[in-house]
């Protein structure tokens, strides 16, 4: 499958509000085709320069879009993270074993909610990291296409600039993710070993429906695997195939076909 199609699929399987924040790969590809089709006569040189300028302009717009969206989401995550921590403390202090209104049932209920919220929160953050990665890959690919079609040298310096963009600097989010994982470990009871077995048992039974975070996460993983499965244009700048140790986990999870929401 071509990258454009995969990207589209990924976009469809992402959270609804995110869908228009992804790279406009198709647009850019059309522009590249236009540019490469333009005759390279002396008269056409001016046209060429204009087309290239337009291309770069579009790219910069896309990057702005990514940055804005990314930073907005990041801000939200920072807030929510702190809010979750606070909530956890509150619940513990109020309904917990040593709390003011200790109540096991209430505590259990609230904790369940918190657990669910935390896991979803974690998932959303990871999806944002995925968003960043997908867009970066798209940019790299379109730049490569551009250089190939037009014989230009745009890719290397432009990509260097991209690497410095806020949307690519996912360190902070990753840190939050790790913090969240620690929080979750605290909140979740023990007993981990049975999970893998349960998964094997329920292998054919797990169908993930809807547009939820879990589904999107699975879709994202699958997409990454496919994208990196090797292409005809493998080069020094290509990523090696994905190495998932427990890919049986993924295969156990089927995805219901998405219903387009347009």
């Amino acid at each position, binding site marked *: 499958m071509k990258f454009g199609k995969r990207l589209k699929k990924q976009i469809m399987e992402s959270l609804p509000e995110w869908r228009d924040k992804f790279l406009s790969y198709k647009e850019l590809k059309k522009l590249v085709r236009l540019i490469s089709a333009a005759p390279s006569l002396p008269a056409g*040189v001016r046209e060429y*320069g204009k087309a*290239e300028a337009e291309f770069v302009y579009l790219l910069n717009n896309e990057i702005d879009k990514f940055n804005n969206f990314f930073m907005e989401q990041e801000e939200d995550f920072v*807030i929510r993270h702190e809010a979750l921590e606070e909530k956890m403390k509150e619940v513990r202090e109020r309904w917990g074993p040593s709390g003011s209104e200790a109540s096991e049932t209430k505590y259990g209920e609230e904790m369940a909610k918190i657990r*669910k919220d935390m896991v979803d929160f974690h*998932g959303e953050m990871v999806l944002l990291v995925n968003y960043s990665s997908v867009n970066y890959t798209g940019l790299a690919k379109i730049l490569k296409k551009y250089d190939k079609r037009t014989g230009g040298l745009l890719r290397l310096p432009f990509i260097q600039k991209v690497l410095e963009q806020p949307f690519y600097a996912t360190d902070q989010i990753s840190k939050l993710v790790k913090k969240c994982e620690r929080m979750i470990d605290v909140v979740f009871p023990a007993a981990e070993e049975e999970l893998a077995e349960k998964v094997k048992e329920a292998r054919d039974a797990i169908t993930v429906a809807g547009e939820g975070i879990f589904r999107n996460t699975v879709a994202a993983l699958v997409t990454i695997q496919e994208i990196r499965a090797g292409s005809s244009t493998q080069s020094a700048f290509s*990523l*090696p195939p994905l190495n998932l140790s427990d890919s049986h986990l993924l295969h156990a999870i089927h995805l219901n076909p998405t219903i387009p929401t347009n």
Partner: protein
Amino acid sequence: MEARPAFSIERSGAKQLSSMGMSGALSSSLPVHPTPIEETYSKIPDSQQAFVEKERLARPLTHSSHLNSSGAVGHMFSSSPGYSTDLHHSSLSPHGKHSRNPHFISQSSSNMVSLPLSYSSSSGPLPSTTSSCYSKESNGSWDADSMPNILDFPVNTSIKDSQVESSACNIMAPDEDGKKNDWQEWADQLINDDDALTSNWNDILVDPSIHDLEPKVSCQTSKSSLPGQQPQGHQQLSASSGEKHGSAPPSSSANSAPAKPRMRWTPELHEAFVEAVTKLGGSERATPKGVLRLMKVESLTIYHVKSHLQKYRTARYRPESSEGSSEKKLTPIEEMSSLDLKTGIELTEALRLQMEVQKRLHEQLEIQRNLQLRIEEQGRYLQMMFEQQCKSGVEKFKAASSAIEDPSGVSSDAIKDSSAKTEVDVSQVNHSKSGTEPDNNSNAQVEANSLKVVENDNAPESQTSDNPKQGASEDYVNAPPSKRQRTDE
């Protein structure tokens, strides 16, 4: 001297134009008023000359030697609008004393010759660039903030410049004799070349409009002189890098856009925010102004605080469903309908499964990101090596052919072979890299190989006498095969 009157006219013409921020196209047909101007010039103290020289030297323009030398003349070729106004004064000095001038002007003229040629490699000399500059004047989309970005891109421009400088040198060669003649020839060239330009000049030279145009024109011309700003007749690299700067990378656009500069909220910053809010009595009570004052963070504006406070309030107000809009997310229960998830334990297990998958995705994303970073770094590194290789390859040829008599055939061939080999090795390294596992070992290996390339380059260069050279070339020949073996492993 019959040359003198023409010369003085041209100079004063230049003076007039330069007072508008335009150094350049001079024609004796341009209306000039030599007498009054000459008078003012003679009043200019000697210090001006020194000032000009200093300006030229002090200009920290990194991306072109041509640009550096242009400092003296180049109010036109300044890298910032402000600079050009300074040089209005400095440009007066060449027209002061005659005795000093020939030296200065010859320098400036040679600069003038080289500059337009270097920045419009295919489209002749100055006129076409300036005329296009004027035509773009009305668009005025130039963002002064992005000017400094040009300087951030030495890699790019140096690549372009090395190509361009050679062409400029070629063109300059015939003009080297007769400095005064240069000026005249160049001026003639300009007169003949572009009719549109002279009409532009005429427009500008109407006195009342001069002062109006001064600041604008100086801005515009500096724009036109910068490599990337000309879409016509430039190498793609220069055009693209220029255009990229022209449209301004997001970080600088954030500064230039007054309405919405984006703030990056870190957990630490948020902590300070929460502290301030609690001090002020909670999210409902706290005001943006108060919070801003308490936080005492430099780059924070009230706009940032306001929007952040709003988000904070929403998050607090519905703590249960505080995870964004819960409508969009289905619970694991709904997601896994075929499992019997009535009991809380199984719910927990479902969540655990979700966590596992999410963790896995995150892990892979991190690995992927590190790979991408490293690959690009390698790419950049290899490119640098490659360029060094090309450069040193040329030098080696020269050294080899000139110095050695007896083993000349051997060593130059060896050097030729080894430079070819290293190129082949570089590409081999690329291929091998794509096939290997993404671990530290292979990357370190690649780096070691690349380094070896450099070492091999440097060894023969430092040799001057015959025997060491031969020895070095032998080393050179031997080294690649061993390197090759390593990459094949």
